[in-house]
């Protein structure tokens, strides 16, 4: 069982993601912004971070930068989700992420992502 860190300010999306993660046999950790996510990441060293980009307090870009800046978390696979477009300037800041998923995401895509992780775990 892997620990998946889910980061989204939308309560319902977090609940849906938690459900999918649990159905795939993993453990979900949820955060409503990047700041809380960093605290949880340091504490639990998740196998995957799945984060939204647009959030209050600390957004997804800042979270990705913070993860990259932390030597203990730099290697953590990170997937970002966004409903909007990403400008080329901002895309550079996401170079370290594993992939970008467009919202509304396909549940099958999330399941595939988690399924692949399961094999690694």
């Amino acid at each position, binding site marked *: 069982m892997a620990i998946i860190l889910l980061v989204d300010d*939308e309560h*319902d*999306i977090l*609940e*849906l993601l938690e*459900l999918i993660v649990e*159905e795939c046999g993993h453990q979900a950790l949820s955060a409503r912004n990047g700041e809380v996510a960093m605290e949880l990441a340091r504490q639990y060293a998740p196998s995957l971070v799945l984060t939204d980009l647009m959030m209050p307090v600390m957004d997804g870009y800042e979270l990705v930068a913070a993860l990259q800046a932390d030597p203990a978390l730099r290697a953590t696979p990170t997937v970002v989700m966004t*409903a*909007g477009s990403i400008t080329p300037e901002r895309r550079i800041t996401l170079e370290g992420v594993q992939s970008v998923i*467009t919202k*509304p*995401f396909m*549940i099958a895509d999330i399941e595939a992502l988690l399924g692949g992780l399961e094999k690694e775990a």
Partner: protein
Amino acid sequence: MIKREVLPTLVPGLDLILGGGLTASAVVLLVGTPGAGKTVLASQLLFQMAHNGARGLIVTNASEGTGKLLAHLDSLDFFDEALIGNKIMLLPFSALLSGDSEATEPAIIATIRRLDVQWLMVDGFQGAAGLLGSTNAVRRFLGTLANISSYLNVTCLVTMEGHGRDPQIAAELTVVDTVLGLEYGVEGWDHMRRIEVIKNRGSSHLHGLHTYAIDAQGFTIFPRLESLPRPLVQAQARGQAGFGLPELDALIAGGLTTGTATVLAGAPGTGKTTLALHWALAGARPEQPTILVSFGEDAEQLQRKAKTFGLDLDAASATGSVVVLHVTASDFTPDIVTASVLAALTTSGQRVVVDGVGVLVQVLGARARTHLTALAIHLASRRATSLYTLEIEPFVGFRLDTRYSPIQPIADNLLVMQYTLALGTLHYMLAVLKTRFSPYDPTLRELLLRPTGIKVLAPQETAPGVFESIAESGGGISPGNRRTV
């Protein structure tokens, strides 16, 4: 941004007023007064989608109960018991509750996932308010549906009692994608049902109130004619649609110009309907039937009247040359009548007779002019030629001012029939006041109503004293002439 698919609803008229259909994964709120048919409409949608292979879930509130809902739907044609438990699952709302109102949202998400449904119907959502415990919880539940519907690929139909324009439910309306307001009430002595698309994100829906009817087949919506996109009226080659009465046709260059609208106004008993029947039958062919709308006489009465004047309406009806649409003058809905007329137009260039347009004008009220304008445009776009009979006051001459009248849009041509009294005898007279696209003979003509049909006399055949009588009574032959009494 991903553009979501538009799903045809298969409910007659609904896609037209929605501007195409419902957006896939939308949250649709059906809000209306008790008895308006919210449950019927939502169920009709759900069952039709299930018939086409989709899976649906109906969540009912505790007061209604699933058994009561099924019993209610059993009388409707679209209900199919075989789909229950197979393609359509039912669940009481209380099954989603676990004492903790905050657990309701995860429960509905899990249920949708577990049952793998593409359509969710939450029926009687006002009843959920009590179960959820607070208005905020109700809004949160709707908000959850709105947030997760596109992820779960589920389209949600939520029925709720109330009025779609009630400011107290504005918060609920904000979060959903589509709001349909249904009204069911009494207007005068009659029941009326109207539906309004208050909101439909991402579509150009038809504005205004639209009439609907509910029968065993479920909902049929009759879009407000005035709201429909105006059809293109192309320039057309004009011909003449004659009455089959040579003397009368000679007055109007062979007949009424095709594609135009004519008002045949006349005092009661002057032979308007008979003359209209002549015109209706003169152009009737099975491959191009005449549509005859009667607000008074039914098909049998019309046939009897026609027979009196040597006209065989019976045979024309039997061969499909004439289609009679009888409307009970005391109880009808104008939008349904006009929709029926347009639906009966199967080919280009048909004749349409509306016998007794005054009744339609009266029921339409303030809408009469705009509605008749829209009707005239739609008929012209199908190259139909129309004739409307209109009852006017007897013995007041031939003056008929249409300038500010609701009938102006249907009065390209204007024929007036009137009585006059001469030497102790009533005489029937006809005047052509106006024609469009063709010349006309302005001379007054006496009519003879005989078993062999209507005969239009030449001026020299007019009975002695008739013209003098008309002149004495002040009956002018053109609008704007002397006021008549």
